[in-house]
């Protein structure tokens, strides 16, 4: 079980994540109100908010996934508190560097920092290396964090057992691998690989920066590395959220725990191959990319959904269908999060079809689908874990006064918010426009509506936040293990 020190560091992580989440939501709302012409923000301010919002959101929800599985893995293995403290310290340093580069240095090349834009300096000169170093600090420290988390698992389970291979070859293996361990290993492996790619990418960019023109990168190679990193971290974060769902949903619903079977093991092992190859769909509109990569991108994007959907959805249906469930905020967040994940996945598959991507690429359809499986998927998985763990910290499962409002607020606000993106995207409104041209004025009205929906979602988040932070505070006055 989790030690007191692990509980305390988990509580600090939750504080950090939730506070950054609220700030990043406020940045997003500011952007949508600006696009809706409700408020006025200069293009540079808009794009520096966009850059900060994107990197912060991807970072905090990837962190939330790692924090959650580390906490829950303590049920099966010895988890290092110092590893989590190390990651937190360097994450905070990296965020401070990032925010300094954007808010003080005015760096605004987007979270994709698509080469060679960071070198066409339209901000303080120091802001480019500050931004790149902030991501390098994050990538190296998280590489150590995720690799260290895998090593912790491998101290108890062999490599074969940690990936549940024995469940594929034998019907009743002598050592059972819990689904949490399997999914954590698969997701952590994906993260380790993507951080290696990020370190190579950032080293190449920093080499060009410090070489003063003697070393020049290839834009296509850098773009492939950028999206391999960006796509993979976003997706693996989602799978870590699913790992917590597998562990906690049966428990809080009063149902038997999930067990790893041959199809669960096979499905999750297959998922990693397809997830790592699906990033090619970000480069469909680069016609110079080899056609084989493009078509593989579509195949991988389609088939990445099969193992996770077939395994997870049927498992959840089996768990819940025609069984009396005591619903609480925790299992409702997991349940609705799963629905949001699937709906966002449908939007993603539509976009990952090359012949659709011609008219959807870099329109608002893209933030539509990734916001769906984050705002209404992964975030809800992590909030479910936060609520559950806060209850555990405080020995208090009481419903807070406004608890019944949380789900309606999150659902109306969240789904309303993403619907405005889908609508605008289908009608060709581009993403990353600080303002819309007159012929695309529908984007303006939809942006304003989206901002109001986001405000509703924010109220729901704040209700969860106040309850969770209050309960988490109790762990610091606790002395028992």
């Amino acid at each position, binding site marked *: 079980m989790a030690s007191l020190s692990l509980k305390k560091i988990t509580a600090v992580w939750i504080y950090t994540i939730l506070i950054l989440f609220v700030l990043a939501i406020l940045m997003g709302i500011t952007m949508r109100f600006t696009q809706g012409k409700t408020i006025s923000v200069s293009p540079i301010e808009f*794009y520096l908010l966009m850059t900060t919002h994107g990197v912060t959101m991807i970072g905090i929800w990837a962190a939330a996934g790692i924090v959650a599985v580390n906490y829950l893995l303590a049920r099966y293995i010895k988890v290092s508190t110092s590893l989590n403290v190390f990651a937190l310290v360097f994450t905070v340093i990296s965020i401070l560097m990032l925010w300094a580069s954007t808010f003080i240095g005015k760096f605004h090349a987007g979270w994709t920092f698509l080469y060679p834009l960071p070198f066409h300096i339209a901000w303080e000169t120091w802001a480019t290396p500050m931004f790149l170093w902030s991501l390098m600090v994050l990538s190296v420290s998280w590489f150590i964090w995720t690799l260290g988390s895998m090593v912790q698992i491998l101290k108890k389970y062999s490599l074969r057992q940690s990936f549940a291979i024995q469940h594929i070859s034998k019907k009743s293996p002598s050592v059972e691998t819990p689904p949490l361990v399997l999914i954590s290993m698969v997701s952590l492996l994906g993260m380790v690989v993507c951080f290696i790619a990020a370190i190579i990418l950032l080293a190449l960019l920093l080499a060009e920066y410090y070489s003063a023109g003697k070393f020049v990168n290839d*834009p296509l190679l850098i773009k492939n590395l950028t999206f391999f990193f960006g796509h993979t971290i976003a997706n693996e974060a989602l799978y870590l959220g699913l790992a917590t769902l597998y562990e906690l949903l049966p428990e809080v619903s009063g149902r038997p725990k999930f067990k790893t079977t041959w199809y669960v093991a096979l499905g999750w092992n297959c998922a990693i191959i397809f997830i790592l190859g699906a990033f090619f769909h970000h480069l469909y509109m*680069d*016609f110079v990319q080899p056609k084989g990569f493009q078509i593989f991108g579509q195949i991988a994007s389609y088939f990445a959904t*099969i193992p996770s959907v077939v395994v997870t959805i049927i498992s959840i249906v*089996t768990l819940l269908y025609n069984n009396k469930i005591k619903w609480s905020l925790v299992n409702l967040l997991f349940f609705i999060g799963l*629905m949001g994940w699937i709906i966002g996945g*449908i939007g993603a598959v539509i976009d990952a079809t090359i012949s659709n991507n011609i008219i959807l690429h870099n329109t608002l359809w893209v933030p539509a689908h990734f916001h769906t499986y984050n705002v209404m998927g992964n975030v809800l998985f992590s909030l479910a874990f936060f609520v559950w763990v806060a209850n555990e910290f405080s020995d208090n499962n009481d419903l807070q006064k406004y608890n019944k409002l949380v789900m309606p607020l999150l659902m109306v606000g969240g789904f309303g918010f993403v619907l405005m993106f889908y609508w605008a995207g289908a009608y060709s409104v581009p993403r990353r426009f*600080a303002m819309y041209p007159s*012929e695309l004025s529908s984007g303006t009205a939809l942006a304003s509506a989206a901002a109001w929906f986001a405000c509703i979602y924010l109220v729901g988040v704040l209700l969860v936040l106040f309850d969770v932070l209050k309960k988490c505070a109790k762990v610091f006055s606790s002395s028992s293990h």
Partner: protein
Amino acid sequence: MEEHKFILFLFLSAAVLVAGIFHFLYSTTLNPPSESEGLQNPLKKRGFVLVFMFIVFVVLLFVTVPKSPYFLFSNETPAKVVYVNAQQFAYMMSYKSIDLNKPEIETDVELPLNEPVEFRVTSVDVTHGFGIYNSKAELLIQTQAMPGYVNRLRWKFTEPGKYNILCLEFCGSGHAVMRSSFTVK
């Protein structure tokens, strides 16, 4: 139904179906029959979903991949070639390859109706987008403008009129105002 509206309709239909299934699943957990044993034969149902999804995806791949932009009008000779050099925050277009030292830029590009044309798109600074919008502000097709590479985009315009070009890759603070246009006659 137009392609844009069809995509939205398809997505919303699927989303409503998923929401309906989740609502049904939720409703079965409130007052299940006392003798209920939950979902029967889950392994068989899992196999059915697996085969169903596999078939759907294979069919979709065979139907959609040939419509990818890389294969459009690939067997036809373009009636006109337009060279495009993107730069922060404008497009240079010419019927001849653009010499950056002595650029000969067309200010009023005219393209033929119902004949294949080819855009050879590159960039002189950062990566840009090259999205072609019709007079109804619908995105028809696009490619990226990447420095050091030339993306060849082929298209056949079937309606005369003015077409706008918008940048669809974030390229800096002037991204939203980076645009150009041409006429199809």
